[in-house]
């Protein structure tokens, strides 16, 4: 699905700098001609992506009648805040756990000898590109009360009774952390690979011990990757549907599932549209500053 999203818009700036000067700064008509090849793709995106998405937003203020009553209803209901709360809770937990698990992986890929690094990277990429539904199904089976994780835990004497690992918050967090780890590893690894070793050496030559070098030099230097990866995971988690719907329960309903429920089950297009706008606004409000920040640091 969505692969490293954060870095892309920044790439265009690089091309602009490298672009060779046009042979002649011709009249603007001929400049527009170079847009030509993109027209079919643009038309496609306009009709099949922009218009339908715009339609959702429009329904939020026109369905059943024109006005902001859908927003008023959403923002006035306690359930909606519970759902927002669940959504943020899951996104925060998933972000924390995927950073904790992804950090050592990115680290080893950066510094291990070629073969080991490639092997670890291959495992990460394989998991990232393996069918989302297949992996979610696997977790659903693994985490059952009669599943092997519970059997192993009971068998090892750690617990007496199987514990509920699925159809609750635990299930959602395990399943989604699993899916998000690659999205932390890849940007973090890019940041780590860009660090100049001599800076760390300088710090230790100057007397800093490893923990100090780690917190005062290494961590600050990988912050861009951590921010990019963390934001991506957080934002993707906010809008996730399939995994929480399968591994959670109605008690842990998240925003995406709520939108689907409103539209498919209750045919409440207005409420669904308004909730979709809220989701998109939150997404962009978190995403855009980070994207802008990245572009600025990339150009300096």
């Amino acid at each position, binding site marked *: 699905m969505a692969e490293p999203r954060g870095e892309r818009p920044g790439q265009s700036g690089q091309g602009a700098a490298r672009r060779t000067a046009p042979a002649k700064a011709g009249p603007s008509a001929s400049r527009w001609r170079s847009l030509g090849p993109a027209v079919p793709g643009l038309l496609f*995106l306009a009709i099949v992506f922009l218009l339908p998405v715009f339609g959702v937003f429009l329904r939020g203020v026109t369905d059943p009648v024109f006005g902001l009553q859908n927003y008023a209803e959403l923002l006035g209901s306690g359930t909606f805040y519970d759902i927002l709360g669940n959504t943020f809770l899951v996104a925060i937990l998933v972000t924390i756990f995927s950073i904790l698990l992804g950090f050592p992986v990115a680290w080893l890929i950066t510094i291990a000898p070629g073969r080991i690094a490639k092997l670890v990277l291959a495992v990460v990429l394989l998991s990232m590109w393996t069918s989302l539904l297949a992996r979610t199904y696997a977790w659903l089976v693994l985490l059952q009360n009669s599943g092997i994780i519970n059997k192993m835990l009971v068998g090892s004497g750690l617990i007496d009774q199987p514990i509920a690992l699925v159809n609750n918050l635990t299930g959602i967090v395990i399943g989604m952390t699993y899916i998000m780890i690659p999205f932390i590893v890849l940007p973090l690894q890019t940041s780590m690979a860009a660090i100049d070793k001599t800076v760390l050496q300088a710090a230790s030559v100057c007397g800093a011990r490893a923990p100090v070098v780690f917190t005062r030099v290494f961590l600050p230097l990988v912050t861009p990757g951590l921010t990019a990866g963390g934001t991506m995971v957080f934002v993707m988690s906010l809008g996730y549907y399939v995994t929480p719907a399968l591994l959670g329960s109605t008690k842990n309903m998240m925003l995406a599932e709520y939108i689907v429920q409103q539209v498919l089950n209750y045919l409440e297009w207005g409420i669904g549209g308004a909730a979709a706008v809220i989701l998109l606004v939150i997404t962009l409000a978190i995403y855009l500053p980070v994207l802008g920040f990245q572009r600025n640091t990339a150009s300096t």
Partner: protein
Amino acid sequence: MLLDLKAMGRFRYVLYGSNILVGLFLLLPIVFIILLSFGSSPWLAFPPPDWTLRWYEKLFSEPTWFTAIMNSFKIGIAVTVMSVLLGVPASFAVVRGRFPGRDALAALSTTPLIVPLIIIGIGLYGASLRYGLSGTFTAFALSHLVLALPFSVICTTNALRSFDENIEKAAIVCGATRAQALWRVTLPAIMPGIGAGALFSFLISWDEVVLAIFMSSPSLQTLPVKMWSALRLDLSPVIAAAAALMVALTLVLLLAAAMIQWFRRPPVTNADQ
């Protein structure tokens, strides 16, 4: 020392150890699903009492599953072809265009990856209901293309950026027409990028479930939609076989992508211009 394994002392074992644990965590569901799909227990007992192919037999003999697999293939291929046909020309405009707002075009082509899938999903659902496309092949292919096109554009754009345009100009100076230069010099040179874009397009379509749920109808389902609706009933091992099939295809395509990378090695390009 933090970037040098040998200088890390004992800490390197901590790093190796944590990587082994995370690696096992990442591989666990994939390996598990494959083993499960060959297990004989209908109750998904693990380890399986015996090994069998009957879930695969069921997958390929039961019409609903088999047609879902075929639909997934057909839609995936249609998406791949369209994604290349629309994406490659668009990439040329993004890299070489001289029109105002070129960066905006580059940004727009990747926007579908930022907007939460569920919003695109209900948007397309509403539109397909309105235009009577609900549950059609067209609706499936077009919706998957929304997500596949960015990958085609990104892969081709990257390849085109690292291709030295002077080589194309040299061909023209040597007497090739613009079209000949494009067809016989530039396109072959960026083929790995186009190929990677095509592979990813297929994988995206093959695995797409959120948009597919909204586009599907009882008469037209893809494999993920069929899995999704089967999952709502029970955890039958046939689903494990379907999941394993999806994993297998991913593996094959990723290997193909690795091969493309391999062939890319002798660079035709002049990256450090």
